[in-house]
């Protein structure tokens, strides 16, 4: 790597699409989810801070970080929890160097696997470890539910990502199992042999994403009212700010990934064109609306119901598409 490339990598990591951009996007995604949810519930949603209340998520984060106190018990390990959250956050953001959105892009065979571990597995493990560092009976119940859901949601999410990437990169014109395959996404959707597989993967992706980010109907690990706030009961002040930020960043990155592997990113335009940028934004917003719609029209499942529904609507489509892809 030359000095210019190293500087560009540092800028990509810190500014765009790294730390500052992805945090802004995550907070804006939270704003959209809150605003759309409010419309469904006949409320106004965030309205007062910034134009149309767009700065409300940032002010919520800022208040938790700067003003609120950290409440701890004699069993709490606050520094360990903070470190795990920061690790989850940095691994998620570090994975963005593989996304075609980045001005400096690292590309290799099987880079989707590295991306998956960094942006999906490590943030999940970090959240579990941080919750365990702040123990309590409600926290333990929340973690056990979270782990139960992950046993189905994570494999389904993994399969729903890997299969489209395999289909788009098997032609040999791009690196095998690389996120560069997004250029072949329109062609893959138009192929009658692949369209069913892509559709099944998309369903598995949406359902497992809903479970990963613990939106209704899969919000049983936090289950407000029933087990207070589940695994996040003992988080407060700056620690709660970090948790919420990690959650939103994970959601934003998973949605960006979906935009590329299912919807083809900026295609048919190029990244550096007005059409490309607008189309990328439209596709992202469409995915946000889809997950917010599911969040608002469904009630919370009990843990056993949640596991069965996840099995039916995310793991089974993922398994069927795996079998189909091995046949075609």
């Amino acid at each position, binding site marked *: *790597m030359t000095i210019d*490339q190293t500087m*560009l*990598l*540092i800028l990509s*990591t*810190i500014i765009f699409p*790294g*730390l500052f951009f992805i945090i802004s996007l995550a907070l804006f995604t939270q704003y959209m989810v809150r605003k759309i949810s409010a419309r469904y519930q006949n409320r106004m949603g965030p309205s007062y801070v910034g134009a149309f209340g767009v700065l409300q998520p940032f002010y919520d984060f800022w208040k938790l*970080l*700067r*003003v*609120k*106190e*950290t*409440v*701890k*018990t*004699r*069993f709490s390990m606050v520094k360990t929890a*903070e470190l795990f959250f*920061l*690790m989850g956050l*940095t*691994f998620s*953001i*570090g994975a963005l*160097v*593989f996304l075609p959105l*980045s*001005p*400096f*892009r*690292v*590309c*290799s*065979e099987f*880079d989707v696997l*590295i991306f998956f571990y*960094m942006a999906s597995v490590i943030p999940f493990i970090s959240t579990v470890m941080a919750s365990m560092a702040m*123990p*309590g*009976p*409600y*926290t*333990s*119940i929340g973690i*056990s539910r979270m782990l*139960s859901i992950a046993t189905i949601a994570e494999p389904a999410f993994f399969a729903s990502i890997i299969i489209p990437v395999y289909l788009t990169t098997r032609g040999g014109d791009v*690196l095998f199992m690389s996120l560069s395959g997004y250029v072949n996404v329109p062609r893959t959707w138009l192929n009658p042999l692949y369209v069913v597989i892509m559709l099944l993967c998309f369903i598995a992706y949406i359902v497992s994403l809903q479970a990963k980010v613990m939106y209704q109907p899969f919000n049983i690990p936090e289950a407000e009212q029933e087990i*207070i706030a589940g695994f996040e*009961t*003992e988080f407060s*002040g*700056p620690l709660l700010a*970090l948790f919420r930020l990690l959650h939103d960043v994970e959601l934003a990155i998973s949605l960006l990934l979906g935009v590329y592997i299912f919807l083809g990113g900026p295609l048919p335009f190029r*990244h*550096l064109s007005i059409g490309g940028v607008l189309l990328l934004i439209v596709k992202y917003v469409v995915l946000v609306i889809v997950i917010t719609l599911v969040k608002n029209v469904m009630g919370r499942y009990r*843990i*056993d119901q949640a596991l069965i529904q996840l099995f039916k609507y995310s793991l089974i489509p993922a398994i069927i598409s795996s079998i189909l892809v091995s046949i075609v």
Partner: protein
Amino acid sequence: MVTLKVDPYMAVAISIGAVALLLAITLLLYYMLKSRITRISDVYLSGEPESVVSSISPSIASLYWGFIRRFARSIFNILVTKVHTGSLHDWYKFISSWYGILLLISIVVFTTLMLIGW
């Protein structure tokens, strides 16, 4: 836009480098900005004192059996009604029947392999 095509090992190395840089920056920003106010309290138990629970976290065994009892009800029923009935005969019957099946399968597999060659 610059695309750097590398082998997977190099890709991991570069991304870990990016993570290290990010970790240093976020640690610095977080500890510079975070509120220093802390308050020590009891574990939150909906207003009850800590004495109402024997331990602060349920044991792993409790979580495991809780999960099996609620989600894998059919497995739990088999374990309770057929294996752990309190009678040693029932336990021996259950275990030996499964061992018998495994033994039978292994004999069939090895015989087939010996007949058709390895």
